[in-house]
């Protein structure tokens, strides 16, 4: 994480760290393995009180950041989520909250209020993504008079089965559109899925001729491309910071193991082949910190290269985070793949984070597109 934090940022991070240590220790997460949501509602509302869902929301709408750079503050929390393999829809609630901030509709304001208090969970249904061709979209939206009709299905949707509001992105004439849909709207069906994670829950959501009024639109019909891009950058920042936290936890416990574990009368930390692998891992870890921090900063500032840096973070950490965690497993040996050991919580975290909001390959394709556009323009 950052070399220099303000004291307010330090407090924010420290408070979350202690809260997670108290309320979501790994022993608790093991117990909640079959819990439908993965956590108690009080855990989430308590976190919301600490500011987990407000950092990207304008002050007018009841939000506010700690440092003036909401994405940077949020990355601090996400990092702690990663270090604790913490449950809870941090990514989706923040993505939806930031999308709703500044939206004046009644539904939007109501949803935002509930997300801010933690009373409701919201999910993003990314049924179309900027790295896809238009015909690859999973959700389509059409106009019917003043209404918008939504069709299609999308998975995985984080906390879909626990969610009150769905921010749905679909392909429509002219570009992408986004609507906010209460989960109980007619034609919406949600099915809980199984996942490789222990702490987080996912669902499949489908829309069958779901009709919503134009007032449910966020922005103009067919004009959401820029806003979607911004949301994915936000998600990339949170996921990257989470994965860096998880990588660091896995790395630290593996370094400790290497000092404690003796074989042939020597600590395994003394074997050069392992020392060199630790050096490589350390370089990946520091590089991940660096690009994660840079992405948070660039997205907070909305710089021209924010998209490139966010995709670089998402793709680099997506790939290298998993390789680091797997190398930690390898160095642990057989014990590293037991359920009793803590390592797998971090392995699962980075593995799933790799896939959410675009895989490394997808972000690389997107990044190439940006690069090509820039060079052609030059």
């Amino acid at each position, binding site marked *: 994480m950052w070399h220099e934090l303000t004291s307010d940022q330090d407090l924010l991070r420290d408070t979350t760290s202690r809260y997670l240590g108290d309320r979501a220790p790994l022993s608790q997460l093991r117990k909640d393995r079959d819990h439908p949501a993965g956590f108690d509602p009080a855990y989430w509302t308590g976190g919301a009180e600490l500011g987990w869902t407000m950092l990207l929301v304008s002050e007018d709408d009841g939000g506010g950041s700690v440092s003036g750079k909401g994405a940077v503050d949020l990355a601090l929390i996400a990092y702690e989520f990663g270090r604790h393999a913490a449950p809870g829809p941090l990514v989706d609630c923040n993505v939806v909250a930031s999308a709703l901030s500044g939206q004046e509709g009644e539904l939007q304001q109501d949803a935002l209020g509930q997300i801010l208090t933690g009373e409701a969970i919201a999910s993003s249904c990314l049924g179309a993504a900027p790295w896809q061709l238009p015909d690859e979209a999973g959700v389509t939206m059409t106009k019917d008079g003043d209404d918008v009709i939504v069709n299609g299905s999308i998975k995985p949707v984080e906390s879909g089965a626990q969610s009150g509001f769905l921010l749905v992105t679909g392909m429509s004439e002219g570009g992408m559109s986004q609507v906010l849909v209460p989960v109980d709207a007619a034609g919406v069906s949600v099915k809980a*899925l*199984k996942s490789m994670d222990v702490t987080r829950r996912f669902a499949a959501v489908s829309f069958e001729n779901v009709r919503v009024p134009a007032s449910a639109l966020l922005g103009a019909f067919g004009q959401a491309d820029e806003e979607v891009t911004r949301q994915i950058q936000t998600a990339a920042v949170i996921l990257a910071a989470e994965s860096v936290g998880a990588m660091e936890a896995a790395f630290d416990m593996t370094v400790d193991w290497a000092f404690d574990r*003796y074989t*042939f009368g020597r600590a395994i930390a003394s074997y050069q082949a*392992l020392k060199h692998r630790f050096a490589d891992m350390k370089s990946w870890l520091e590089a991940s910190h660096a690009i994660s921090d840079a992405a948070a900063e660039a997205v907070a500032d909305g710089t021209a290269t924010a998209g490139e840096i966010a995709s670089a973070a998402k793709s680099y950490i997506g790939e290298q985070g998993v390789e680091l965690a*797997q190398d930690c497993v*390898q160095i642990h*040996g057989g014990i590293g*793949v037991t*359920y009793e050991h803590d390592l797998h919580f971090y392995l699962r975290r980075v593995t799933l984070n790799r896939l959410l909001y675009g895989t490394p390959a997808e972000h690389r394709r997107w990044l190439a597109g940006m690069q090509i556009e820039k060079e052609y323009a030059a």
Partner: protein
Amino acid sequence: MSDEMESVDDFRARAREWINANLGPMQPWDISQHCDTDEIELEAVARDRALQRKLFDGGFAGICFPREYGGLGLTPDHNRAFNEELAGHEYPSRFSVPTFSPCASVLLEYGTPEQKAAHLPAILKGDEVWVQLLSEPGGGSDVAGITTRAEKQGKDWVVNGSKVWTSRAWWADWGIILTRTNWDLPKHQGMTVFILPLHQPGIEIQRIERLNGESEACQEFFSDVPVPDSDRVGEIDAGWTIGTRWMYHERLGHNSPYVTRPIGGKREQSYEPSVVGIARKAGRLDDPSARELIGEHSALGLVTHELQRRIAAGAASGKGNKDLSSIDRVFRGIASVRRSTIAFELAGSGASVWDEDEEDATDAIGMNFLMRQVACIGGGTTEISRNVVAERVLGMPREQSGDRNIPFRDVPRGPKRG
């Protein structure tokens, strides 16, 4: 039965007839010993015990075991002929490894006549399933670094300590165990081998859950477990002599002449999910980068197969060095990791999140990926194999070790002692 040995061909013909008359077709659980629930697994064990008994009663159990212990006293060629005829048929797969090899094999070579008489016929009749109690927590690749102790009490012994990674000990009957009996001698001296029944007071068996939910491996805790001196195998403090031979039989595994299992016939069915199928399900079959991954997966599979053939041919021709198998082990580990990763990459989010009601749920891909390093850990890590390749195949200097030529009690075993 005359004293003259039956020819392999005659034996083969007789075996074929008996097998066709008595054994049903091979079942999936004969290859993969994975069972969805413990109940199903115990049923499978009972079925295997009965099958082993059927072989015994039919006169085909223990083909290479001596007649005096209930075997047939025939040659490895006879065993191979039987195994070839067995192709495609059900068989008692839970007896093959580790019961016949290494356990019964070690017993046959080093056991007392009384021990052999007591256990070998019981094994051949399906009454005893054995496990090997070798690895220890904190032991890993350093097999000879064991600290489970056996101490003399009168003329008998008491065992304390723990063993781990014992497959399926929770329903097995007997174990062969390597213990430390003398702490004043250097590491490779001062060990002794015993046998003991697994289910007795003083032995607690815990199952180890893996991160993918499977829990075939166990850990055993020994608290003042009494072992009569008559259950000692080999000389006191000379256990490593047995140990090296034990590990030889372990490496032989399914290829041991003491093991009954089908070979040849139609190629063994692969339980790996097809990457073409994975890519199709993910809608990526026409994506050129997905195709490159499919091709790489396929190429690595072919290379793995050909390398194995090459190493085996080298060994068979006598030109190869036995350490060459470590080359294969390193390669297989790396290739398997890459192949799991490709499958995961091709599956997209389906590998991590799935609908369990769907026909071809994709959970196995994700779990294989999370477990991918097992290919580089199980049966000796790739790190140890790399040492073997560098030191014994390429002749490079050995690693310094901190445990040679000093009393075992003085070997550094952790920062608290160091």
